[in-house]
């Protein structure tokens, strides 16, 4: 069952993916089971991408389709972002938004509420915004090396304010240098978007 749904997502076939769910579940009653299935499948897709077995375009389309499906069958999900959450995601320094978009879709599709800070250039502005919003877990996406090393400045801003926060980083520079997340003083790094789900769940349990 899971395999068929996954295949439809990887083919970017949203009609097939939706009709598969509507045939397999009672959409009005089994919301939690659907979220669990979607979360499982997206985690698998994330691992496949990490292994180099599938492409970024497939992971992007899969996450988008899942988000659309959930918005359709669980309309209350659509407004979750505006509800109280202490998790936020941001693109630091530049206009490369895709990583943030995919991770956000993965998290929303797995029932994790998240605030989207968009793109912020200044480490100081980012830290201030996180503090104002009482953020406890901050996900920072970067594409370029010179953006990635600015995470250290973000951490420094939090330290100066004595503000305790977990920072999860992701993006190309961290994939090419697996020690960079430690150098920039992050708490963890994610290779695939599915890692964000695992790490946030782990942090929640701490």
């Amino acid at each position, binding site marked *: 069952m899971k395999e068929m749904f996954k295949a439809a997502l990887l083919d*970017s076939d949203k009609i097939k993916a939706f009709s598969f769910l509507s045939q397999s579940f009672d959409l009005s009653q089994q919301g939690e089971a659907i979220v669990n299935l979607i979360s499982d499948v997206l985690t698998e897709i994330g691992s496949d991408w990490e292994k*180099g077995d*599938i*492409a*970024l*375009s*497939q992971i*992007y*389309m899969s996450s988008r389709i899942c988000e659309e499906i959930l918005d359709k069958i669980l309309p209350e999900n659509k407004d979750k972002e505006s509800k109280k959450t202490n998790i936020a995601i941001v693109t630091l*320094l*530049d*206009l*490369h*938004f*895709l990583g943030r*978009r995919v991770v956000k879709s993965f998290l929303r599709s797995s029932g994790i509420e998240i605030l989207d800070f968009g793109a912020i250039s200044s480490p100081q502005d980012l830290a201030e915004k996180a503090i104002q919003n009482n953020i406890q877990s901050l996900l920072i996406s970067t594409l*370029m*090396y*010179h*953006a990635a*090393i600015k995470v250290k400045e973000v951490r420094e801003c939090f330290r100066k304010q004595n503000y305790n926060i977990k920072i999860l980083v992701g993006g*190309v*520079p961290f*994939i*090419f*240098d697996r*020690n*960079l997340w430690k*150098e920039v003083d992050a708490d963890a790094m994610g290779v695939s978007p599915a890692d964000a789900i695992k790490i946030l769940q782990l942090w929640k349990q701490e």
Partner: protein
Amino acid sequence: MNSMQRVLTALSQKKPDRVPLMLLFSHYGAKETGITIKDYFSNPDNVIEAQMKMHKKYKSDCLYAFSYASLELEAFGGNTIFFKDGPPNSSKPILKNLQQIEQLKVPEIMECPSLQRVLRTISGLKKEVQDTVPIIGVVMSPFSLPVMQLGFEHYLDMMQFHFGFFEKLMEINKQFCVRWANAQIQAGATAICYFDPVSSPDIVSPQFYKKTGFAIAKETIAQIQGPTATHFASGRCKEILEDVIQTKTAIACVSSLEDIGEIKNICNGRLSILGNLNGIEMCRWTELEAEKAVRDIIEKAGKNGGLLLAENHGEVPYYVQEKILLSIASAVERWGT
């Protein structure tokens, strides 16, 4: 051997006096010159002077006329954002919706100041070196340019759900790419680096590449009046290598995430390879680590020509230390002969 002889020997799958070193310096020249990246690229004389200086200092076997990717977006009416310590980025996409593709025109190269600056850079470099050092020009592939024209998300959506618009945009981009490449060849570029990151299996599936990026590359490269190197900007290429060979490109760039020895074996003399030093790790390497990285690549792929040693992303990052580049240069002399 001079740099040109060394590179041509390697490309003909024969052993040169040493493995050619292709350090692709773009905005790094601003660091060498001690001026801002924006100022550096505003005057071709800055680039010519820095390219010549870096060629001698780091014993690199090419001159790199590339400035920044969004230069091509500027030709379409877009803007560039400059940073103090990293590659310039494209500003907002020029296409706000897909319908605007209907009105999009192929830019005139003569009318775009930033393209003209690159052509003046190439001519100036050619005057300096004649045919002793390869001068590398750069184009964005028609298939990869829309990431800047539309934004990545909208481009992926268009590929999937609006193939008619995709085909229209590709026609415009192909014409522009061929004109821009040939203008650089006419100005004195020895070869064109065809940047095509979207074709990497990291971005689109090999099946999708076959009907899009591959077909576009084959048609475009055939019209470029000089040799080409296909660069995936650190994206992997192993799964599509057979198709890449069919595009008649001369060189493929190998990601540092790939085993360069394995890629060389697959190519088996049909294609030369460029790579695959890890530019991100390079920013924190010690001199010993730099030497080891060079030695490993040469041991895996340096025998009997066919290898051009380079960083894998297509430009040396601003944060790489001078002493590391000097270590790379001396390691090539030590292990690459």
